[in-house]
């Protein structure tokens, strides 16, 4: 059982290191590749925490779909002038101070609770159990989520094409101006 603790601390260090690397990279492509490592580590962590189905979903959706989407958008857009200002302390100081304030508050809140020192017991929720639970107790939320995905799809398509409408709107005032 000590093996699980060792695996947990190694995976936690891996997640924190790769996420920190991703946050500080200047090139977004490098950041995304580091983030894939971070999400694979998170999937491993999910598995240790007893959610094999969610670990698979994390690999498929986060490390697979979302990061590939980011990569495609980075490749689609011209990113030459990105972050030309570099890392200025004026940008990073407020973020670090606010974030550290949050972490300190969270640590105080967590470590003050006597129940938080309880050692987690190993348990596993098999995908069949999990699916039955979801569709027995949260079927309405699942339907709402599916509608949300549909709305997101429609919004992405509508925002993504948009070019023809923009041209029509740009040229229309000129024509009316000539006629007048």
């Amino acid at each position, binding site marked *: 059982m000590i093996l699980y603790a060792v695996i947990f601390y190694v995976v936690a260090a891996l997640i*924190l290191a790769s996420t920190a690397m991703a946050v500080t990279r200047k090139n*977004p492509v490098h950041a*995304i590749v580091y983030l894939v490592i971070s999400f694979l580590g998170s999937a491993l962590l999910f598995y240790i925490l007893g959610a094999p189905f969610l670990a698979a979903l994390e690999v498929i959706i*986060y490390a697979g779909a979302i990061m590939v989407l*980011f990569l495609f958008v980075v490749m689609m857009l011209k990113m030459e002038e990105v972050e030309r200002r570099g890392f200025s302390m004026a940008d990073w100081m*407020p*973020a670090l101070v606010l974030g550290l304030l949050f972490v300190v508050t969270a640590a105080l809140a967590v470590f003050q609770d006597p129940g*938080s020192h309880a050692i987690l017991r190993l348990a596993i929720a098999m995908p069949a159990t999990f699916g039955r639970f979801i569709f027995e107790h949260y079927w309405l939320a699942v339907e709402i989520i599916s509608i949300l995905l549909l*709305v997101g799809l429609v919004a992405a398509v509508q*925002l993504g094409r948009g070019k023809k409408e923009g041209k029509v709107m740009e040229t229309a005032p000129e024509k009316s101006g000539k006629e007048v």
Partner: protein
Amino acid sequence: MIVPFSHVFMLAALVFFLGLVCMVARRNLIMMLIGIEIMMNGAAIAFLSASLHWQRLEGQAFVLFILAVAATEVSVGLALVVAAHRQTQTMDPDGYHALKW
């Protein structure tokens, strides 16, 4: 059997912290969206550790919903970024001042 609950929760808080710093400090729309993704990942870790602590499945159910919301958010967000880039030719959030005279 494995580790204290507080350690897993602090890992979630640190991941959330990294996402928050990425979101606030970076001056690039793509990196800001990545920060939101990191924060959602931290929230998912917190939900899963709570699920294991109380031996209830609700935490895992909410992680499923977090995954779906993250997927929707990132697809709409990236479509917005592409549309904004088409209009202004910049990825810098300070570059969007079309309403300014």
